């Protein structure tokens, strides 16, 4: 069974059709790329999947559940996590607290619980702290645990964003231009990190990326959008040699 199903997904802003009847499926454990020129509607697709935008038309189902009309926090609870094109960490929270925010769903002892069951509440908090430290250690961020997010280097901030997303225990991770602003060494590290994430956590990953080296290097399947419409889909080889894609990129393909 496929994990995520997009059917005729359409988003119009006034007269502009940002995403035009996109149909796509994502299988569990797949590493999939979403590419296309600027303004092709890639981030809009992410925003519809995560509930930031309500699609004008079309359906989104994830793990058998309908996502259209659900609130962002509910969608996050079903197992979809994301990072952002422009980093959106909580700048004045420590790295630890940033990741802890992701755990809000995981062990859900709510507001009342913290007052009525203090003992199990604090035990839960302790368990979470251990899990966070484990995640931070995995990503080599344990040394920066108590540093404020805004004081971290750009590459570290991107990694904290990924850790924060992983803290929500997703089945599908959406990465919006994870390699943006990274140097070649950082990009290389990022690529192995993304593969590691998929293998270690057994999740599917959908990523938007402009860096063709990164996309072609790690994605098993690629979908290309242009002016909101899906123009190609297939393995990296197939996509690379597709004349439509070459045309869309106006010779920018290699």
């Amino acid at each position: 069974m496929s994990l995520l199903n997009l059917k005729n997904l359409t988003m119009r802003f006034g007269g502009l059709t940002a995403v035009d009847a996109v149909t796509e499926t994502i299988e569990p454990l797949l590493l999939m790329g979403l590419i296309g020129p600027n303004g092709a509607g890639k981030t809009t697709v992410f925003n519809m999947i995560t509930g930031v935008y309500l699609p004008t038309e079309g359906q989104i189902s994830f793990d058998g559940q309908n996502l259209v009309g659900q609130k962002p926090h509910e969608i996050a609870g079903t197992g979809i996590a994301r990072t952002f094109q422009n980093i959106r960490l909580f700048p004045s929270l420590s790295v630890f607290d940033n990741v802890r925010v992701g755990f809000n769903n995981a062990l859900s002892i709510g507001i009342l619980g913290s007052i009525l069951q203090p003992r199990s509440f604090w035990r839960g908090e302790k368990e979470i702290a251990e899990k966070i430290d484990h995640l931070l250690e995995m990503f080599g961020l344990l040394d920066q645990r108590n540093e404020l997010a805004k004081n971290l280097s750009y590459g570290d901030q991107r990694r904290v964003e990924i850790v924060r997303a992983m803290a929500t225990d997703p089945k599908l991770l959406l990465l919006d231009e994870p390699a943006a602003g990274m140097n070649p060494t950082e990009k290389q590290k990022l690529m192995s990190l993304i593969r590691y994430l998929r293998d270690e956590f057994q999740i599917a990953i959908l990523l938007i990326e402009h860096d063709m080296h990164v996309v072609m290097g790690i994605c098993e399947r690629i979908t290309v959008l242009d002016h909101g419409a899906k123009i190609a889909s297939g393995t990296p080889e197939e996509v690379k040699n597709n004349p439509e894609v070459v045309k869309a990129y106006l010779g920018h393909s290699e």
Partner: protein
Amino acid sequence: MEEFLQQLINGLSLGAIYALIALGYTMIYGVLRFINFAHGDVFMIGTYIGFFILTSSFGQALGPGFGTAVIVFLAAMLGCGLLGVTIEFLAYRPLRTRPKLTVLITAIGVSFFLEYTGQLSFVFGADPRTFPTVVEKTMVVQSGSLVIDSYQIIIFVVAIVLMLGLRMLIMKTRIGTALRASSMNLNAASLMGINTNAVISFTFFVGSALAGAGAILYAMSYPKINPLMGILPGLKAFIAAVLGGIGNISGAAVGGFIIGSAETMTAGYISPTLRDAIVFAILIFILIVKPSGLFGQGGTEKV
């Protein structure tokens, strides 16, 4: 010297009340970026909750004492907290996506609604009422002209305990982390699985409950209550929040103490008629010199 010490003690105990109210302004601003002008009136309702409990046959039977005080405090905090949540749900939530000015005007509307509904004869009535004694007032220190009574100590202790509790809640718990995260980026927080509506309700509950506690402390020291009594303390607490840097929680607490002390010092050394004027003078001064407040970050607000 004794005179100064006396004024300082008076100022700090008054300031503790302002600080409690200011925390509500600053917490709500922190998450939603607007000033809840009805906050002072929630404070006023808090005094009436206390009043009705104390004057009921139940309260009469109980009489002044420690147990009574605990009941009155908890009731006022719970009542104000629920009122704050209700106001947000009915008046502000439907306007969440509208321009901030719309919500601001609505807040002023809610404020008038509470003030003037309160004055209706079948609600509270416009005439001032006398707030009954919650606990007996005793002199704790009396040396020369220096006098410290039990109320000043109660106010100070209650306020400090609540502020430390709030700090603990915000810094140590997950709902507190969620609250801080939401105040930095509401959208990103909701995408990370935080139910931001619940966080906002929680913020209103806690902020308003603190105003409820402040209300009882205020009514104990100034036991004349009326439906318009929330305006001035509300405004002063708002100024305290601005002075400390709106959105900054420790700033609101510090601002409250500064405003309270400035007020009693002015009343004691210059003239009692200037006690309100000095507070507004501080507001004008801070807006000219450092509009972001003492601890504010300034210039970071996105529209």
